[in-house]
């Protein structure tokens, strides 16, 4: 309950900031009665009102029996997973799709309890297989990165 209130309060701050930013929007020359700021401000206003209502009357969170309440260990894992996702996103272009995905695949598989060798195999197989499928067969261009010299 406290966590929820904290989150709602933290959410209210950017909403209020957005209202402040949004109220400055003006069309340089207007030829219609409703300008660019009315609709977003209306939505933000209602959103803020809804958040305040929830702050006062928070609804209890129902836990799925499948999902135990977070522990320190699972939160650490979630943090690691987020770091991994960010790392993958940042490495996607500079390293190239195949090396980045192999690495990410390996790390993800390890994080979710795979053993070293199968995880490595899976990462490389997925990276090469999906590259061939999307880049070669489906014409979705994927970055080659450090493998650019090879040009398979």
């Amino acid at each position, binding site marked *: 309950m406290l966590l929820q209130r904290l989150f709602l309060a933290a959410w209210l701050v950017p909403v209020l900031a957005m209202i402040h930013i949004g109220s400055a929007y003006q069309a340089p020359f207007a030829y219609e009665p*409703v300008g*660019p700021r009315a609709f977003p401000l209306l*939505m933000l206003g209602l*959103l803020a009102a809804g958040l305040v209502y929830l702050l006062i009357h928070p*609804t209890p969170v129902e836990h799925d029996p499948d999902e135990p309440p977070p522990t320190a260990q699972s939160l650490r*894992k979630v943090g690691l997973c987020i770091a991994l996702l960010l790392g*993958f996103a940042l490495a996607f272009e500079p390293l190239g799709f195949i090396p980045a995905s192999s690495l990410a695949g390996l790390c993800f598989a390890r994080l979710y309890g795979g053993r070293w060798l199968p995880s490595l195999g899976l990462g490389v197989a997925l990276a090469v297989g*999906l590259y061939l499928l999307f880049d070669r067969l489906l014409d979705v261009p994927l970055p080659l990165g450090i493998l650019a010299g090879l040009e398979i």
Partner: protein
Amino acid sequence: MDTLNFLMQGFGVALTPTNLLIALIGTLIGTVVGLLPGLGPINGVALLIPVAFAFGLPPESALILLAAVYLGCEYGGRISSILLNIPGEASTLMTTLDGYPMARQGLAGVALSLSAWSSFLGAFIATCGMVLFAPMLAKWAIAFGPAEYFVLMVLAIVAMAGMAGDKPMKTLVAALLGLFLSCVGIDANSGVYRFTFDSIHVADGIQFVVLVLGLFSVSEILLLLEKTHHGQQAVKTTGRMLFNLNEARRVLLINLRCGLGGFIVGVLPGAGATLASALAYMTEKRLAGPDGQFGKGDIRGLAAPETAIGASCCGAMVPMLTLGVPGSGTTAVMIGALTLYNITPGPLLFQNEPELVWGLIASLFVANLMLLVLNVPMIKVFTRILAVPNWALVPLIAIITSIGVYAVHATTFDLLLMVAVGILGYVLRKLDFPLSPLLLGFILGGHMEQNLRRALSISNGDLDILWSSGIAQGTWVLVALMLALPLLRLWRRRAARRPAEPAALA
């Protein structure tokens, strides 16, 4: 007899070898995606949008693919519900109630085939309803002006909150966040950059694919870290695989009833399969009375929600095609896909793109039949897919999701934005905020604002236009009813509690 002609024309489109093959592939992929824990129709359809593009599929084939995947996902979801007692998503929750006990009693094969049959009947009824009513609705919808559309979209948003049961406010807040996010980017009417913070990457708005994949795939990856059902064994499918005639006769009436009900709920904007299946189960439970074995493996308790899910999936396509207002999260994704093809769903779709609409309707018939014929003998194969461990599944989801996002703009920024959206989605899900309304709000937001501004331009700023026509007034009445619904429920709960309290005190 125009309708029949058009339908024949539609079958002409659906039965071309390419489209048949696409429907087949779509149903198979859909079933596998639906089977996998945590992946539902929204993920399946969203992941396939870039693929459909990459193949250079014409719009009607792309839509057939997405619709086939949608139906397949709903189909696959029931396999994990019945054999593992894990509902793939909210709508199949009701299936587990009687499906899993049946599987425990050694009737897994019967449960699977009966649910397949029920869902086929439901989808069949709904598709027939679609053939009958969609063209009528489309003709009628041409009378809708911008003001009426605006009110209709307000209804869609409010209906979601009103029917969300115990957390209307959270649903509303999620939808409003989606509506706000749709405003980010350059304003088409005035050229003002809104909420972009001078970043060129969001100048044309938040990409729809980024939002969907972030909200549903990335947050799912994070949630999979905590789930405790690793290694749960699927119930073995032994014994009789097919239901017998006697069982089919016992549930036939339920099939018809729930099929009709599911279709109606599916057509309502904003409602969808979850509500349809819950309503169907509760109604049948009440109708069966004390002699029902509901919750202990009653075949009626299995047939009712399955028929309703099948029917509401097809029903949800009616508002999507005729009004351009999605009836569920998944149809919202499909609308997004259509707009990528530069096709605006709405009443004119029936006139301008008859091949697309009727081809889609005809292929719904085809895909349903395929699912029924294919899946009964392949249940054994599918149960093996359930054994895929998370450590192999997550890298696959993560990499395909990233490819899907990268394919839109080819920028690192979109990948980072996807992760950020995913984290937000994860936190929202942890705090019990529903995510489909957010997506629906995002899809509706642009249209809502445009229609509001257009309406007020027509009336020169006079707000009266929003409630001047009969259609608008009728819709406002519905909006008011939907808003009153949660209050009514609250009042009834209080009234029910009051007499109980003194007894507890004494």
